[in-house]
């Protein structure tokens, strides 16, 4: 996976040069500090993994145990038998992938227009995008639902997707990134007689790998973990996404099934984690070029 085409910014080359031998002990100390920091970050997850193999009774036990006394895969078994797991996984994937693609395509197109094209109303459009970034999302929830229901999209995949299909964040990120693409490159393509759409697809987009990775990860993460919107739009179980289904089975009126919740959360986390590991080099490089404007 490290053999993927090198991102524009080579992450290794700009790292500070190897230190003089006298700095050896400093290197050890640095590693000690980083490992301690890493432990602080990871220990809760280790606890979660261990907890997912405990029985409900053991999870309630005080003082809590670290290592499961009677390790049991029961929580995972329950997760995959009581929940129609393939269906919820399918729904989550369809929704998150569609939203990610939508934001990548539409965000890039609009971002390109804002960064590299000159047209009437451009400044107003950019301010609109920026302004919307600042509106607290909760307030849009009810009007958006009424809208979606009046369009007849309640309980459809499209209804789950449409409201976040073209979010302002994507436009903003892509604009910032595309500002760093040299104008000469685009100008040269124009001189060669390429149309604007061809320039966009064949010249600009291939340069956007890191930014697309960044936007892709952020959007996918948001869509994958979304809870409230899928909860209200999916009115039958056929359309539930993983977080909704997990809440359904793990959180009751009076009690919470912590074991199932932990096992489920770990399983839900896994795809996003894999995507991050695969794309993390591009992710960093992408942020480097969107943030530094």
């Amino acid at each position, binding site marked *: 996976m490290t053999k993927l085409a090198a991102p524009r*910014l080579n992450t290794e080359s*700009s790292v500070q*040069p*190897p*230190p003089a031998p006298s*700095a050896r002990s400093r290197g050890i100390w*640095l*590693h000690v*500090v*980083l490992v301690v*920091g*890493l432990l602080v*970050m990871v220990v*809760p*997850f280790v606890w979660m993994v261990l907890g997912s193999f405990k029985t409900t009774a053991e999870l309630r036990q005080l003082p809590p145990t670290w290592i499961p006394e009677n390790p049991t895969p029961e929580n995972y078994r329950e997760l995959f038998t009581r929940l129609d797991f393939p269906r919820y996984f399918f729904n989550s994937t369809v929704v998150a992938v569609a939203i990610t693609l939508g934001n990548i*395509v*539409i965000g890039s*197109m*609009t971002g390109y*227009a*804002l960064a590299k*094209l000159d*047209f*009437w109303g451009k400044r107003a459009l950019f301010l609109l995008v920026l302004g*919307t*970034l*600042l*509106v*607290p999302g*909760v*307030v*849009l*929830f*009810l*009007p*958006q639902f009424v*809208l979606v229901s009046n369009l007849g999209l309640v309980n459809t995949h499209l209804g789950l997707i449409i409201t976040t*299909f*073209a979010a302002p964040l994507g436009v903003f990120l892509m604009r910032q990134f595309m500002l760093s693409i040299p104008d000469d490159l685009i100008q040269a393509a124009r001189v060669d007689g390429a149309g*604007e759409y061809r320039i*966009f697809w064949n010249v600009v987009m291939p340069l956007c790998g890191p930014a697309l990775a960044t936007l892709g990860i952020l959007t996918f*993460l948001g869509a994958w*973990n979304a809870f409230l919107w899928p909860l209200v739009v999916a009115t039958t179980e056929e359309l539930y996404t993983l977080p909704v289904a997990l809440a359904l089975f793990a959180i009751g009126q009076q009690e*919470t099934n*912590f074991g199932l*919740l*932990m096992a489920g*959360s770990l399983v839900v*986390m896994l795809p996003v*984690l894999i995507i*991050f*590991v695969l794309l*993390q080099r591009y*992710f*960093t490089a992408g*942020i*480097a*070029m969107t*943030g*530094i404007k």
Partner: protein
Amino acid sequence: MTQRAAVATEGATAARLPDGAGRQRRGAKQNLIGWSFALPFLVLFAVFVAGPILASLGMSFTDMRIADIRNPFAVDIVGFENYAALFQDERFLRAAANTAYFVVVAMPLTMAAGLAIALGLNQAIVKFRTVFRVGFYLPVVASVVAISVVWRLILNEETGLINGILGVFGIDGPGWLTTPELAMPSIIAMTVWRNLGYQMVIFLAGLQAIPLMLYEAADIDGANRWAKFRYVTLPLLRPTLLFSAVITLIGYLQFFEEPFVMTEGGPLDATLSVSMYVINQFGFGNYGYAASISYVLFLAIAVLTFIVFRFLRPQD
């Protein structure tokens, strides 16, 4: 817009005329191209975002409550009454003060922690960089519900990990989430933990964009590590700091997830945030009032973001 499009097609063929006469017509073609790129976004945005924003803004000037939900037109317009009531509402003021406290403490902490880790990981001697990066990023990926389960156990007064460690040193640890004065610091600690991975990635990116030769030049001048950080890294990191500050500010001013799952705003409203108050009012069905709080928050975010921009933007 359609009118503009018609004009634009007309001028399409004359686009590459170099003389002054063509400028007007080239503008028309560029308008067409520009808007054609922005159109898909604009349509979806107008319908699914701008519409609901206007509707909710309108809602904030009415007394809309849950009883009106099936017939939203039968509400009374109350003008700025909701907004006026807000500043008499002690719980809102408390929530605003809590939010300010949270942002002022958590924002620098998160940024500093993210930067420190990025600086550490950016040293050439560090091994297993990917492991560290993924490890520090892990909390960003997890759902907040899962995280809350674990953190509640870690902060548990009787049996939690933290008080267990304090116990080794003979300290009787307090109830981190149940003591009003400690609840917010505990929430802040958890938030910093949860978000520093994202900041780390941003700063790593910023650090990697700094040309190596600047450090080499500093070495030749005999600069020590602190001098290099102060006079090379920090100034060149300014745009990254701005980006990180803006992202953190916008996110933190709207913070609610951590108290929502950990403390429900308590004890004694010590962790009640503005966004959480919006959610509460929304849940009570006071839609008009909830909307007005959101727009006050929006205004605060806009003003503060503007100030940060002014303060941190690169000096040319």
